[in-house]
């Protein structure tokens, strides 16, 4: 069965600290996609990144970076030099090509204190 685990329910750090959000997934499929979404207090889900199972290169976008490791079934998300505006709930999700439903993690609430 497919499953996404975000073990960190809530993380609180002081501004400018680096923070890593963990995501561990389970799937039997060889072709699958992983996603991260951000949900700020306003409520709208904002797409951050999509990665397919054949691309294990890490990705960096500004202060955001993602570490995809198939060997440990993890797709972790790091925010460098965090800012108050990064405060949100972050969701990791999994999709395979046969089932259009996204399998969602429970989300990690990130609190950045000034």
């Amino acid at each position, binding site marked *: 069965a497919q499953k996404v685990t975000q073990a960190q329910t809530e993380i609180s750090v002081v501004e400018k600290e680096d923070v890593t959000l963990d995501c561990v997934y389970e799937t039997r499929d060889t072709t*699958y996609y992983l996603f991260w979404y951000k949900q700020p207090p306003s*409520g*709208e889900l904002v*797409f951050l990144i999509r990665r397919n199972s054949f691309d294990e290169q890490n990705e960096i976008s500004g202060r955001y970076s993602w570490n995809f490791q198939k060997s440990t079934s993890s797709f972790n998300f790091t925010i460098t030099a965090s800012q108050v505006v990064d405060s949100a709930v972050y969701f990791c999700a999994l999709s395979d090509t046969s089932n*259009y439903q996204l399998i*969602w993690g429970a989300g990690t609430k990130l609190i950045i204190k000034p």
Partner: protein
Amino acid sequence: GAGVSQSPSNKVTEKGKDVELRCDPISGHTALYWYRQSLGQGLEFLIYFQGNSAPDKSGLPSDRFSAERTGGSVSTLTIQRTQQEDSAVYLCASSLAHGQGKADTQYFGPGTRLTVL
């Protein structure tokens, strides 16, 4: 371009009344999804539309819930005889397609916050 839009943004209704929630997907997106998110919870899949195919209604929690998609574009989610447990944020998403070896990114609307008194 315009993103996914939903209306109304907020809806307060009395128990037992019917409500309709509307979703306008991104132009050109053939796949449309409805989700429900209760306070502090993750997303619960409700229904999926893909082109002209029959929708996947497997996530609808009861027969009081129904949805339609007219002309392959706008979708309406209807909840009949609302109950207090229906109170949640209803999110709509659209994507280019799914299947054929791809899983396109779902883009979400701002949601409709439904409160049943």
